[in-house]
Protein backbone atom coordinates (compact mmCIF):
# COMPACT_ATOMS: atom_id res chain seq x y z
CA UNK A 1 0.00 0.00 0.00
CA UNK A 2 1.20 3.48 -0.75
CA UNK A 3 2.27 5.59 2.24
CA UNK A 4 -0.26 8.26 1.33
CA UNK A 5 -3.02 5.68 1.34
CA UNK A 6 -2.00 4.50 4.82
CA UNK A 7 -1.91 8.06 6.01
CA UNK A 8 -5.48 8.60 4.85
CA UNK A 9 -6.62 5.42 6.55
CA UNK A 10 -5.00 6.44 9.84
CA UNK A 11 -6.63 9.85 9.54
CA UNK A 12 -10.00 8.24 8.91
CA UNK A 13 -9.48 5.94 11.90
CA UNK A 14 -8.61 8.80 14.24
CA UNK A 15 -11.63 10.81 13.12
CA UNK A 16 -13.88 7.81 13.63
CA UNK A 17 -12.52 7.25 17.15
CA UNK A 18 -13.04 10.86 18.11
CA UNK A 19 -16.53 10.82 16.65
CA UNK A 20 -17.40 7.61 18.52
CA UNK A 21 -16.28 9.08 21.81
CA UNK A 22 -18.18 12.29 21.16
CA UNK A 23 -21.35 10.38 20.22
CA UNK A 24 -21.12 8.23 23.34
CA UNK A 25 -20.83 11.29 25.55
CA UNK A 26 -23.67 13.08 23.80
CA UNK A 27 -25.85 9.97 24.13
CA UNK A 28 -25.05 9.64 27.82
CA UNK A 29 -25.75 13.24 28.72
CA UNK A 30 -28.64 13.57 26.28
CA UNK A 31 -30.36 10.48 27.67
CA UNK A 32 -29.96 11.69 31.24
CA UNK A 33 -31.36 15.07 30.27
CA UNK A 34 -34.23 13.46 28.36
CA UNK A 35 -35.24 11.16 31.21
CA UNK A 36 -34.35 13.33 34.15
CA UNK A 37 -35.12 16.95 33.41
CA UNK A 38 -38.89 16.94 33.89
CA UNK A 39 -38.85 15.56 37.41
CA UNK A 40 -36.49 18.21 38.75
CA UNK A 41 -38.93 20.19 40.83
CA UNK A 42 -39.79 20.97 44.41
CA UNK A 43 -41.18 17.53 45.04
CA UNK A 44 -37.92 15.87 43.97
CA UNK A 45 -36.01 17.63 46.68
CA UNK A 46 -38.48 17.87 49.50
CA UNK A 47 -41.08 15.16 48.84
CA UNK A 48 -44.33 16.13 50.55
CA UNK A 49 -42.71 18.19 53.23
CA UNK A 50 -42.87 21.96 53.25
CA UNK A 51 -39.58 23.25 51.75
CA UNK A 52 -39.18 25.97 54.34
CA UNK A 53 -39.62 23.60 57.24
CA UNK A 54 -37.19 21.18 55.63
CA UNK A 55 -34.57 23.83 54.98
CA UNK A 56 -34.72 24.97 58.58
CA UNK A 57 -34.49 21.34 59.71
CA UNK A 58 -37.84 21.53 61.53
CA UNK A 59 -39.13 18.55 59.66
CA UNK A 60 -37.44 15.46 58.26
CA UNK A 61 -37.84 14.76 54.55
CA UNK A 62 -38.28 11.08 53.76
CA UNK A 63 -39.15 10.89 50.10
CA UNK A 64 -36.94 13.57 48.59
CA UNK A 65 -33.35 14.21 47.70
CA UNK A 66 -32.88 16.88 50.35
CA UNK A 67 -31.30 14.64 53.04
CA UNK A 68 -29.01 13.09 50.44
CA UNK A 69 -27.90 16.53 49.27
CA UNK A 70 -27.19 17.63 52.82
CA UNK A 71 -25.42 14.32 53.52
CA UNK A 72 -23.17 14.68 50.48
CA UNK A 73 -22.39 18.29 51.33
CA UNK A 74 -21.50 17.49 54.94
CA UNK A 75 -19.48 14.48 53.87
CA UNK A 76 -17.47 16.33 51.24
CA UNK A 77 -16.94 19.34 53.48
CA UNK A 78 -15.70 17.23 56.35
CA UNK A 79 -13.46 15.07 54.16
CA UNK A 80 -11.84 18.09 52.50
CA UNK A 81 -11.42 19.83 55.84
CA UNK A 82 -9.45 16.82 57.04
CA UNK A 83 -7.52 16.09 53.86
CA UNK A 84 -6.61 19.58 52.65
CA UNK A 85 -4.22 20.67 55.44
CA UNK A 86 -2.53 17.27 55.59
CA UNK A 87 -2.25 17.02 51.81
CA UNK A 88 -0.87 20.54 51.54
CA UNK A 89 1.68 19.98 54.30
CA UNK A 90 2.80 16.62 52.95
CA UNK A 91 3.05 18.05 49.42
CA UNK A 92 5.17 20.92 50.70
CA UNK A 93 7.41 18.48 52.53
CA UNK A 94 7.89 16.38 49.41
CA UNK A 95 8.61 19.31 47.15
CA UNK A 96 10.72 21.47 49.46
CA UNK A 97 12.34 19.34 52.12
CA UNK A 98 12.43 15.64 51.31
CA UNK A 99 15.61 14.49 49.57
CA UNK A 100 17.29 11.28 48.57
CA UNK A 101 15.92 7.95 49.70
CA UNK A 102 13.19 9.46 51.90
CA UNK A 103 11.81 11.19 48.86
CA UNK A 104 11.87 8.07 46.69
CA UNK A 105 10.15 5.98 49.34
CA UNK A 106 7.50 8.63 50.04
CA UNK A 107 6.83 9.07 46.33
CA UNK A 108 6.38 5.33 45.92
CA UNK A 109 4.02 5.10 48.90
CA UNK A 110 1.88 7.99 47.68
CA UNK A 111 1.71 6.47 44.20
CA UNK A 112 0.58 3.29 45.89
CA UNK A 113 -1.99 5.10 47.98
CA UNK A 114 -3.46 6.75 44.91
CA UNK A 115 -3.67 3.40 43.13
CA UNK A 116 -5.54 1.58 45.89
CA UNK A 117 -9.12 0.96 44.73
CA UNK A 118 -11.65 2.98 46.67
CA UNK A 119 -13.55 -0.11 47.80
CA UNK A 120 -10.39 -1.32 49.55
CA UNK A 121 -10.17 1.97 51.40
CA UNK A 122 -13.82 1.58 52.32
CA UNK A 123 -13.14 -1.90 53.65
CA UNK A 124 -10.19 -0.53 55.61
CA UNK A 125 -12.57 1.96 57.20
CA UNK A 126 -15.00 -0.78 58.02
CA UNK A 127 -12.19 -2.83 59.54
CA UNK A 128 -11.14 0.10 61.69
CA UNK A 129 -14.75 0.50 62.82
CA UNK A 130 -14.92 -3.20 63.71
CA UNK A 131 -11.72 -3.02 65.73
CA UNK A 132 -12.86 0.13 67.51
CA UNK A 133 -16.24 -1.46 68.13
CA UNK A 134 -14.55 -4.38 69.82
CA UNK A 135 -12.63 -2.04 72.14
CA UNK A 136 -15.42 0.46 72.82
CA UNK A 137 -18.69 -1.42 72.31
CA UNK A 138 -21.63 0.68 71.17
CA UNK A 139 -19.71 3.90 70.71
CA UNK A 140 -18.32 3.87 67.25
CA UNK A 141 -19.75 2.24 64.16
CA UNK A 142 -20.00 3.16 60.51
CA UNK A 143 -20.98 6.81 60.42
CA UNK A 144 -20.54 10.14 58.70
CA UNK A 145 -17.20 10.80 60.41
CA UNK A 146 -15.81 7.42 59.39
CA UNK A 147 -16.85 7.96 55.78
CA UNK A 148 -15.30 11.41 55.78
CA UNK A 149 -12.03 10.05 57.18
CA UNK A 150 -11.90 7.35 54.51
CA UNK A 151 -12.74 9.81 51.73
CA UNK A 152 -10.01 12.05 53.08
CA UNK A 153 -7.59 9.16 52.77
CA UNK A 154 -8.84 8.55 49.23
CA UNK A 155 -8.19 12.11 48.01
CA UNK A 156 -5.05 12.67 50.09
CA UNK A 157 -2.65 11.47 47.35
CA UNK A 158 -4.36 13.74 44.79
CA UNK A 159 -3.89 16.75 47.04
CA UNK A 160 -0.29 15.82 47.82
CA UNK A 161 0.52 15.42 44.12
CA UNK A 162 -1.25 18.64 43.19
CA UNK A 163 0.76 20.58 45.78
CA UNK A 164 4.01 18.87 44.92
CA UNK A 165 3.64 19.39 41.18
CA UNK A 166 2.60 23.01 41.65
CA UNK A 167 5.67 23.76 43.76
CA UNK A 168 8.15 21.77 41.70
CA UNK A 169 7.12 23.42 38.44
CA UNK A 170 8.01 26.89 39.70
CA UNK A 171 10.69 28.62 37.67
CA UNK A 172 13.94 28.37 39.67
CA UNK A 173 14.53 32.08 39.16
CA UNK A 174 11.32 32.93 41.05
CA UNK A 175 12.43 30.63 43.83
CA UNK A 176 15.82 32.37 43.95
CA UNK A 177 14.49 35.88 43.72
CA UNK A 178 12.76 35.60 47.08
CA UNK A 179 15.80 34.02 48.66
CA UNK A 180 18.12 36.66 47.23
CA UNK A 181 15.99 39.35 48.89
CA UNK A 182 16.66 37.76 52.23
CA UNK A 183 13.50 35.69 52.62
CA UNK A 184 13.86 32.71 54.89
CA UNK A 185 12.78 29.37 53.52
CA UNK A 186 9.37 29.64 55.17
CA UNK A 187 8.86 33.25 54.11
CA UNK A 188 9.75 32.25 50.58
CA UNK A 189 7.19 29.46 50.73
CA UNK A 190 4.32 31.47 52.16
CA UNK A 191 4.92 34.84 50.52
CA UNK A 192 6.12 33.79 47.09
CA UNK A 193 5.86 30.14 46.13
CA UNK A 194 2.37 29.27 47.41
CA UNK A 195 0.72 32.52 46.25
CA UNK A 196 2.43 32.05 42.91
CA UNK A 197 0.77 28.68 42.46
CA UNK A 198 -2.58 29.56 44.04
CA UNK A 199 -4.60 28.77 40.89
CA UNK A 200 -3.10 25.30 40.59
CA UNK A 201 -3.58 24.62 44.28
CA UNK A 202 -7.18 25.81 44.17
CA UNK A 203 -8.06 23.76 41.13
CA UNK A 204 -6.42 20.72 42.69
CA UNK A 205 -8.61 21.23 45.73
CA UNK A 206 -11.75 21.59 43.63
CA UNK A 207 -10.96 18.42 41.69
CA UNK A 208 -10.53 16.64 45.02
CA UNK A 209 -13.97 17.91 46.04
CA UNK A 210 -15.40 16.44 42.84
CA UNK A 211 -13.69 13.15 43.56
CA UNK A 212 -15.23 13.08 47.05
CA UNK A 213 -18.69 13.93 45.78
CA UNK A 214 -18.82 11.17 43.19
CA UNK A 215 -17.34 8.30 45.15
CA UNK A 216 -19.78 5.57 46.06
CA UNK A 217 -17.62 2.58 46.89
CA UNK A 218 -16.01 4.06 50.01
CA UNK A 219 -19.20 5.32 51.57
CA UNK A 220 -21.28 2.22 50.96
CA UNK A 221 -19.04 0.31 53.35
CA UNK A 222 -18.68 3.04 55.94
CA UNK A 223 -22.08 4.30 56.90
CA UNK A 224 -24.28 5.52 54.09
CA UNK A 225 -27.83 4.13 54.17
CA UNK A 226 -30.89 4.43 51.95
CA UNK A 227 -33.06 6.37 54.42
CA UNK A 228 -31.64 8.20 57.37
CA UNK A 229 -32.92 11.74 57.06
CA UNK A 230 -30.65 14.66 57.81
CA UNK A 231 -27.99 13.50 60.28
CA UNK A 232 -27.91 15.28 63.64
CA UNK A 233 -24.34 14.39 64.50
CA UNK A 234 -21.29 13.17 62.67
CA UNK A 235 -21.54 9.84 64.46
CA UNK A 236 -24.79 8.96 62.68
CA UNK A 237 -25.69 7.28 59.42
CA UNK A 238 -26.55 9.55 56.53
CA UNK A 239 -27.74 9.61 52.93
CA UNK A 240 -25.74 10.63 49.86
CA UNK A 241 -26.58 11.33 46.22
CA UNK A 242 -24.37 8.68 44.57
CA UNK A 243 -25.66 5.99 46.89
CA UNK A 244 -29.23 7.14 46.24
CA UNK A 245 -28.65 6.55 42.52
CA UNK A 246 -27.26 3.10 43.24
CA UNK A 247 -30.21 2.15 45.45
CA UNK A 248 -32.69 3.32 42.85
CA UNK A 249 -30.93 1.26 40.21
CA UNK A 250 -30.95 -1.89 42.31
CA UNK A 251 -34.40 -1.74 43.90
CA UNK A 252 -36.76 0.69 42.21
CA UNK A 253 -40.40 -0.29 42.33
CA UNK A 254 -42.20 2.18 40.08
CA UNK A 255 -41.61 4.72 37.33
CA UNK A 256 -41.69 7.72 39.64
CA UNK A 257 -38.85 6.36 41.69
CA UNK A 258 -36.90 5.56 38.56
CA UNK A 259 -37.38 9.07 37.22
CA UNK A 260 -36.07 10.42 40.49
CA UNK A 261 -32.99 8.28 39.99
CA UNK A 262 -32.45 9.90 36.60
CA UNK A 263 -32.87 13.34 38.11
CA UNK A 264 -30.40 12.52 40.85
CA UNK A 265 -27.91 11.27 38.25
CA UNK A 266 -28.42 14.47 36.29
CA UNK A 267 -27.82 16.54 39.42
CA UNK A 268 -24.68 14.59 40.32
CA UNK A 269 -23.22 14.82 36.82
CA UNK A 270 -23.98 18.55 36.74
CA UNK A 271 -22.33 19.00 40.13
CA UNK A 272 -19.17 17.08 39.19
CA UNK A 273 -18.81 18.65 35.74
CA UNK A 274 -19.56 22.04 37.26
CA UNK A 275 -16.75 21.58 39.79
CA UNK A 276 -14.45 20.49 36.98
CA UNK A 277 -15.30 23.53 34.88
CA UNK A 278 -14.76 25.78 37.89
CA UNK A 279 -11.31 24.28 38.44
CA UNK A 280 -10.54 24.63 34.75
CA UNK A 281 -11.69 28.24 34.71
CA UNK A 282 -9.61 29.15 37.76
CA UNK A 283 -6.53 27.57 36.29
CA UNK A 284 -6.80 29.16 32.87
CA UNK A 285 -8.56 32.47 33.19
CA UNK A 286 -8.52 33.69 36.75
CA UNK A 287 -4.78 33.35 37.24
CA UNK A 288 -4.10 37.02 37.19
CA UNK A 289 -7.13 38.25 39.04
CA UNK A 290 -6.99 35.65 41.77
CA UNK A 291 -3.35 36.22 42.52
CA UNK A 292 -3.36 39.91 42.36
CA UNK A 293 -5.13 41.48 45.22
CA UNK A 294 -6.28 44.93 44.26
CA UNK A 295 -5.10 47.04 47.13
CA UNK A 296 -6.87 50.24 48.00
CA UNK A 297 -4.55 53.22 47.74
Amino acid at each position, binding site marked *: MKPRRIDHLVALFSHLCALTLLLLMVTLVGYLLYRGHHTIDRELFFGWADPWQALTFQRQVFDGLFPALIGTTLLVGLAILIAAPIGLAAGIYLAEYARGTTRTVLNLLFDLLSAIPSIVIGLFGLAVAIVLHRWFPGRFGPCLLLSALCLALLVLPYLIRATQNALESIDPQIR*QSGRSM*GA*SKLQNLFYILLPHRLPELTSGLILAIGRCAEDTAVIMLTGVVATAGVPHSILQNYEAIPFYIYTVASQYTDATELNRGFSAALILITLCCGLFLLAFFIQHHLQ*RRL*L*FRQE*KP
Partner: protein
Amino acid sequence: MNPREKIRLSNLNFFYGKKPILRDICLTVYPGEITAICGPSGSGKSTLLTVFNALWKDDEHARVHGTACLSLDGQHCNLLHPEITLETLRRRVGMVFQTPNPLPMSIQANVAFPLKLAGEKMSPQVAGQVENVLRRVHLWEEVKDRLHHDARQLSGGQQQRLCMARSLILEPDVLLLDEPTSSLDPEASQHIEALMVELKPLCTQILISHDPLQVQRIADRHHFLHQGRLVTQPH
Protein backbone atom coordinates in the same frame (compact mmCIF):
# COMPACT_ATOMS: atom_id res chain seq x y z
CA MET B 1 42.36 41.88 53.75
CA ASN B 2 43.22 45.35 52.67
CA PRO B 3 40.74 47.98 53.98
CA ARG B 4 40.41 49.29 50.43
CA GLU B 5 38.95 45.95 49.32
CA LYS B 6 35.25 45.06 49.43
CA ILE B 7 35.27 41.39 48.57
CA ARG B 8 38.10 38.99 48.24
CA LEU B 9 37.94 35.45 46.97
CA SER B 10 41.02 33.29 47.09
CA ASN B 11 41.60 29.74 45.91
CA LEU B 12 37.88 29.28 45.59
CA ASN B 13 36.66 25.96 44.18
CA PHE B 14 33.04 25.26 43.40
CA PHE B 15 31.71 21.76 42.89
CA TYR B 16 28.30 20.69 41.74
CA GLY B 17 28.06 17.13 42.92
CA LYS B 18 31.43 15.85 41.84
CA LYS B 19 31.72 18.12 38.87
CA PRO B 20 34.04 21.10 39.31
CA ILE B 21 32.43 24.32 38.08
CA LEU B 22 34.92 26.93 39.30
CA ARG B 23 38.60 26.30 39.92
CA ASP B 24 41.11 28.34 41.92
CA ILE B 25 39.27 31.61 41.67
CA CYS B 26 41.19 34.58 43.10
CA LEU B 27 39.28 37.78 42.73
CA THR B 28 39.19 41.14 44.44
CA VAL B 29 36.32 43.57 44.21
CA TYR B 30 36.85 47.22 45.16
CA PRO B 31 34.14 49.38 46.74
CA GLY B 32 32.23 51.86 44.61
CA GLU B 33 33.24 50.23 41.38
CA ILE B 34 31.53 48.17 38.76
CA THR B 35 33.40 44.91 38.43
CA ALA B 36 32.43 43.01 35.33
CA ILE B 37 32.75 39.27 34.88
CA CYS B 38 32.45 38.08 31.32
CA GLY B 39 32.89 34.83 29.51
CA PRO B 40 31.13 32.38 27.24
CA SER B 41 27.94 30.74 28.41
CA GLY B 42 28.58 27.74 30.61
CA SER B 43 31.84 29.17 31.90
CA GLY B 44 30.45 29.48 35.43
CA LYS B 45 29.64 33.20 35.59
CA SER B 46 26.25 32.83 37.23
CA THR B 47 27.63 30.21 39.60
CA LEU B 48 30.34 32.62 40.68
CA LEU B 49 27.70 35.24 41.40
CA THR B 50 25.88 32.89 43.79
CA VAL B 51 28.99 32.81 45.98
CA PHE B 52 28.60 36.49 46.85
CA ASN B 53 25.14 36.15 48.43
CA ALA B 54 25.51 32.49 49.42
CA LEU B 55 22.61 31.55 47.17
CA TRP B 56 24.46 28.37 46.37
CA LYS B 57 23.66 27.10 49.85
CA ASP B 58 20.06 26.53 48.74
CA ASP B 59 21.25 23.83 46.42
CA GLU B 60 22.00 20.57 48.15
CA HIS B 61 24.49 19.45 45.49
CA ALA B 62 26.70 22.54 45.59
CA ARG B 63 29.91 22.63 47.61
CA VAL B 64 32.46 25.40 47.90
CA HIS B 65 36.04 25.31 49.20
CA GLY B 66 38.49 28.18 49.68
CA THR B 67 38.02 31.58 51.26
CA ALA B 68 35.56 34.31 50.47
CA CYS B 69 35.56 37.45 52.55
CA LEU B 70 33.16 40.36 52.46
CA SER B 71 33.80 43.60 54.30
CA LEU B 72 30.58 44.91 55.86
CA ASP B 73 30.64 48.09 58.00
CA GLY B 74 34.35 47.63 58.64
CA GLN B 75 33.78 44.07 59.78
CA HIS B 76 35.04 41.05 57.91
CA CYS B 77 32.40 38.50 57.11
CA ASN B 78 33.33 35.02 56.00
CA LEU B 79 30.91 34.17 53.18
CA LEU B 80 31.63 30.47 53.43
CA HIS B 81 31.06 30.22 57.18
CA PRO B 82 28.58 27.39 57.73
CA GLU B 83 26.53 29.33 60.26
CA ILE B 84 26.31 32.62 58.45
CA THR B 85 22.82 34.15 58.71
CA LEU B 86 21.74 34.01 55.11
CA GLU B 87 18.79 36.35 55.53
CA THR B 88 20.92 39.16 56.97
CA LEU B 89 23.63 38.69 54.37
CA ARG B 90 21.16 38.76 51.51
CA ARG B 91 19.62 41.96 52.75
CA ARG B 92 23.03 43.59 52.36
CA VAL B 93 23.88 41.93 49.06
CA GLY B 94 21.10 42.55 46.54
CA MET B 95 20.63 40.66 43.32
CA VAL B 96 19.06 41.45 39.96
CA PHE B 97 18.31 38.56 37.64
CA GLN B 98 18.73 37.96 33.95
CA THR B 99 15.03 38.15 33.16
CA PRO B 100 12.97 40.69 35.09
CA ASN B 101 11.09 38.81 37.79
CA PRO B 102 8.43 40.97 39.39
CA LEU B 103 6.40 38.95 41.85
CA PRO B 104 2.67 38.59 41.26
CA MET B 105 1.74 41.63 43.34
CA SER B 106 1.14 45.31 42.82
CA ILE B 107 4.02 47.62 41.90
CA GLN B 108 4.15 49.09 45.37
CA ALA B 109 3.93 45.72 47.10
CA ASN B 110 6.75 44.45 44.91
CA VAL B 111 9.13 47.24 45.85
CA ALA B 112 8.17 47.11 49.52
CA PHE B 113 8.39 43.32 49.62
CA PRO B 114 11.94 43.06 51.05
CA LEU B 115 10.83 45.34 53.90
CA LYS B 116 7.85 43.09 54.52
CA LEU B 117 10.23 40.13 54.70
CA ALA B 118 12.22 42.03 57.30
CA GLY B 119 9.02 42.40 59.32
CA GLU B 120 7.81 45.89 58.48
CA LYS B 121 4.16 46.71 57.85
CA MET B 122 2.93 48.93 55.05
CA SER B 123 2.99 52.50 56.39
CA PRO B 124 3.28 56.04 55.01
CA GLN B 125 6.98 55.84 55.85
CA VAL B 126 7.41 52.70 53.79
CA ALA B 127 5.40 54.30 50.99
CA GLY B 128 7.88 57.19 51.12
CA GLN B 129 10.80 54.80 50.85
CA VAL B 130 9.14 53.14 47.88
CA GLU B 131 8.76 56.52 46.22
CA ASN B 132 12.42 57.32 46.86
CA VAL B 133 13.80 54.20 45.25
CA LEU B 134 11.37 54.42 42.36
CA ARG B 135 12.60 57.96 41.74
CA ARG B 136 16.18 56.77 41.93
CA VAL B 137 15.58 54.24 39.15
CA HIS B 138 13.60 56.88 37.18
CA LEU B 139 10.44 54.85 37.27
CA TRP B 140 8.37 57.07 39.55
CA GLU B 141 7.00 59.36 36.88
CA GLU B 142 5.91 56.41 34.79
CA VAL B 143 4.14 54.44 37.50
CA LYS B 144 3.06 56.93 40.16
CA ASP B 145 -0.57 56.78 39.04
CA ARG B 146 -0.76 53.00 39.02
CA LEU B 147 1.18 51.90 42.07
CA HIS B 148 -1.56 49.44 42.87
CA HIS B 149 -1.66 47.76 39.49
CA ASP B 150 -0.16 44.39 38.71
CA ALA B 151 3.61 44.78 38.31
CA ARG B 152 3.67 42.24 35.51
CA GLN B 153 1.81 44.63 33.22
CA LEU B 154 4.88 46.86 32.93
CA SER B 155 7.20 46.66 29.93
CA GLY B 156 10.38 44.58 30.17
CA GLY B 157 12.63 47.57 30.78
CA GLN B 158 10.30 48.98 33.39
CA GLN B 159 10.09 45.61 35.09
CA GLN B 160 13.87 45.38 35.30
CA ARG B 161 14.11 48.87 36.79
CA LEU B 162 11.40 47.84 39.25
CA CYS B 163 13.50 44.84 40.24
CA MET B 164 16.50 47.12 40.76
CA ALA B 165 14.38 49.40 42.91
CA ARG B 166 13.27 46.36 44.88
CA SER B 167 16.88 45.43 45.55
CA LEU B 168 17.82 49.02 46.38
CA ILE B 169 15.13 49.59 48.99
CA LEU B 170 17.24 47.71 51.54
CA GLU B 171 20.19 50.01 50.74
CA PRO B 172 22.49 47.10 49.97
CA ASP B 173 26.27 47.39 50.12
CA VAL B 174 26.75 45.19 47.11
CA LEU B 175 24.52 44.73 44.10
CA LEU B 176 24.86 41.61 41.98
CA LEU B 177 23.63 41.93 38.41
CA ASP B 178 23.25 38.77 36.37
CA GLU B 179 23.15 39.95 32.74
CA PRO B 180 20.48 42.47 33.62
CA THR B 181 20.11 43.78 30.09
CA SER B 182 20.24 40.57 28.09
CA SER B 183 16.48 40.26 27.76
CA LEU B 184 15.87 43.94 27.04
CA ASP B 185 15.78 46.04 23.89
CA PRO B 186 18.65 48.52 23.28
CA GLU B 187 16.79 51.53 24.62
CA ALA B 188 15.82 49.84 27.86
CA SER B 189 19.38 48.53 28.22
CA GLN B 190 20.68 52.07 27.95
CA HIS B 191 18.43 53.10 30.83
CA ILE B 192 19.73 50.31 33.02
CA GLU B 193 23.36 51.05 32.16
CA ALA B 194 22.97 54.73 32.97
CA LEU B 195 21.38 53.73 36.24
CA MET B 196 24.26 51.48 37.15
CA VAL B 197 26.73 54.28 36.61
CA GLU B 198 24.62 56.59 38.80
CA LEU B 199 24.53 53.99 41.55
CA LYS B 200 28.31 53.69 41.79
CA PRO B 201 28.69 55.95 44.83
CA LEU B 202 25.96 54.04 46.69
CA CYS B 203 26.96 50.47 46.25
CA THR B 204 29.58 48.16 44.88
CA GLN B 205 28.33 46.40 41.79
CA ILE B 206 29.31 43.09 40.28
CA LEU B 207 28.05 42.74 36.75
CA ILE B 208 27.85 39.63 34.65
CA SER B 209 27.74 40.40 30.98
CA HIS B 210 28.61 38.80 27.72
CA ASP B 211 28.49 42.03 25.79
CA PRO B 212 32.10 43.29 25.53
CA LEU B 213 30.94 46.75 24.46
CA GLN B 214 28.77 47.10 27.52
CA VAL B 215 31.69 46.09 29.72
CA GLN B 216 33.91 48.69 28.06
CA ARG B 217 31.26 51.37 28.47
CA ILE B 218 30.53 51.03 32.17
CA ALA B 219 32.85 48.64 33.98
CA ASP B 220 35.85 49.84 36.00
CA ARG B 221 37.50 46.44 35.95
CA HIS B 222 36.74 43.28 34.19
CA HIS B 223 37.62 39.65 34.56
CA PHE B 224 37.26 36.87 32.09
CA LEU B 225 35.99 33.40 33.04
CA HIS B 226 36.91 30.51 30.82
CA GLN B 227 35.96 26.93 31.68
CA GLY B 228 35.75 27.76 35.36
CA ARG B 229 39.10 29.58 35.55
CA LEU B 230 39.58 33.27 35.90
CA VAL B 231 41.72 35.22 33.47
CA THR B 232 42.23 38.69 34.87
CA GLN B 233 42.96 41.61 32.61
CA PRO B 234 43.97 44.79 34.44
CA HIS B 235 42.14 47.78 33.06
